[in-house]
């Protein structure tokens, strides 16, 4: 006789999630696995001890719901430019068309986010608490962009360690000590700083443009033109984006300014778009 697996593995201990591969998980399904009354999600035999049924009210973030798409940012001569659209999408539905995804931290720093909007609002809250503390100390010291970057990296990494990530890709931009600063923090705590930083689809679409044309000493007109081109490309090729953008500018002389939402000229009358299959091989 084959040895029957016991209902409760002593190796795992009480209330611990067991091998999940026995049950199709969300990475394979396109929806969360529905719990069946006698079959535990841990993949043990029927009527085994099921950690999910232990009535622990804590949940772990598994999927984002209302999301923002790409963010792109570049350094230029006087400071940094951070650009993104103003869409909060609900799956592929373009649901909230006026969300500001750039947060003004203090006079020398902004943070922009792609990913779950509610988690970004929570992060904005945390940063607001830090800024308020600085204000209360009343000693003229503000958080520098590099300190904001390090702080957010620690927050994201710690949440990742608890298997409860804040589902965001964050871009931190600002000026410190007269020098522009640009950094990125991912949802698992990955972080780096660079002259140009992108998240989401912009990684594939805008980054080649930046690599070709971005220079640390470029003028503001060139930088703005480069940013418009990058935003345009992302709108053309990203399904879940809208033609309504905001650009935040942080300079050493003028501090932070976040523009009003604006649209860019787009062309959809290219002949190839009209009847795309007409030109396919074998078409008639």
């Amino acid at each position, binding site marked *: 006789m084959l040895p029957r697996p016991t209902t409760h593995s002593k190796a795992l201990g009480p209330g611990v999630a067991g091998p999940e591969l026995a049950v199709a998980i969300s990475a394979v399904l396109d929806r969360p696995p529905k719990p069946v009354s006698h079959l535990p999600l841990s993949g043990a035999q029927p009527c085994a001890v099921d950690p999910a049924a232990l009535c622990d009210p804590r949940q772990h973030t598994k999927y984002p719901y209302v999301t923002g798409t790409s963010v792109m940012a570049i350094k230029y001569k006087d400071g940094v430019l951070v650009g993104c659209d103003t869409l909060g999408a609900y799956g592929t539905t373009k649901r909230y068309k006026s969300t500001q995804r750039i947060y003004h931290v203090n006079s020398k720093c902004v943070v922009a986010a792609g990913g779950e909007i509610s988690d970004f609002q929570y992060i904005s809250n945390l940063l607001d608490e830090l800024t308020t503390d600085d204000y209360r*100390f009343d*000693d003229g*010291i503000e958080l*520098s962009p590099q*300190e904001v970057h390090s*702080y957010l990296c620690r927050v994201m990494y710690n949440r990742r360690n608890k298997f409860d990530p804040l589902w965001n890709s964050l871009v931190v931009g600002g000026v410190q000590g007269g020098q522009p600063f640009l950094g990125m923090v991912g949802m698992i705590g990955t972080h780096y700083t660079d002259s140009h930083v992108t998240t989401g689809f912009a990684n594939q679409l805008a980054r080649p443009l930046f690599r070709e044309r971005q220079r640390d000493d470029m003028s503001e007109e060139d930088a703005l033109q480069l940013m418009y081109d990058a935003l345009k490309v992302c709108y053309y090729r990203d399904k879940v984006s809208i033609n309504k953008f905001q650009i935040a500018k942080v300079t050493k002389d003028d501090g932070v300014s976040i523009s009003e939402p604006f649209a860019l000229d787009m062309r959809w009358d290219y002949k190839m778009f009209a009847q795309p299959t007409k030109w396919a091989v074998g078409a008639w």
Partner: protein
Amino acid sequence: MFRNQYDTDVTTWSPQGRLFQVEYAMEAVKQGSCAVGLKSDTHVVLATLKRSQSELSSFQRKVFKIDDHMGIAIAGLTGDGRSLCKYMRNECINHRYVYESSMPVGRLVRQIADKSQVCTQRSWKRPYGVGLLVAGVDSQGPHLFSSCPSGNYYEYKAIAIGARSQAAKTYLEKHLESFPSATLDELVRHGLRALQSSLSEGELTEANSSVAVVGKDLSFTILEDEAVQPYITALKEDEPMQTEAAVVEEEQREAPVEGQVAEDGGQAAYEAALREGEGPAPMEAD
């Protein structure tokens, strides 16, 4: 007359509106040996007089490095001083871990003051019996703070605490105008002279004095024994010469050096400097 009736615990006020336990704690600070602090536009210097229990024992440490940009000198109960030092080091290193930058000096001193104030308002606690001189440099420049058991803290241009500190304060007040533009060497010598004024008997030697320096390009460095010898000698002879701290500062500007005393290296550097024979202009005789 009423002191004995209202001084049993820290949560009892006297009719004159005083907390005697807190004032007694400040007395403990005055019993500690003298510690002097002074700052210029670029550096902060701490100079302390170390006591020893007996001829057989070593001298009690009074200067502690908190972080690369900050350090303290204590006067009063050394046990309490060590406990606060551990707290400050912890706060600084946590700040560095989260923000990857140095902690602003004023904020840490305020945290110490808040911690001290709590001990003056709990019936089951007693006030800390130690006064701190906190010397540090941050984005706003060099700072010198003094905190005391009552939970008060002030920023100073120059200050002395501990036994017979009034004599040292008098010296500091007399020379206050020359501090902001003083070089590091001049600042250290002022500090040692102020310390000397607080001596009732005996004299400053490299065994019983301890100097610490910190500046924008100079991480907190403690000068003791051989490292402070040149300054003691200079004090006696009253001659100008390029000494240890200035050499250390140049080395640190070129390549950042961690840690406290460059003992043997310091002696070699001092002799090299002597051979060069250059130095700052002679100071006016005291």
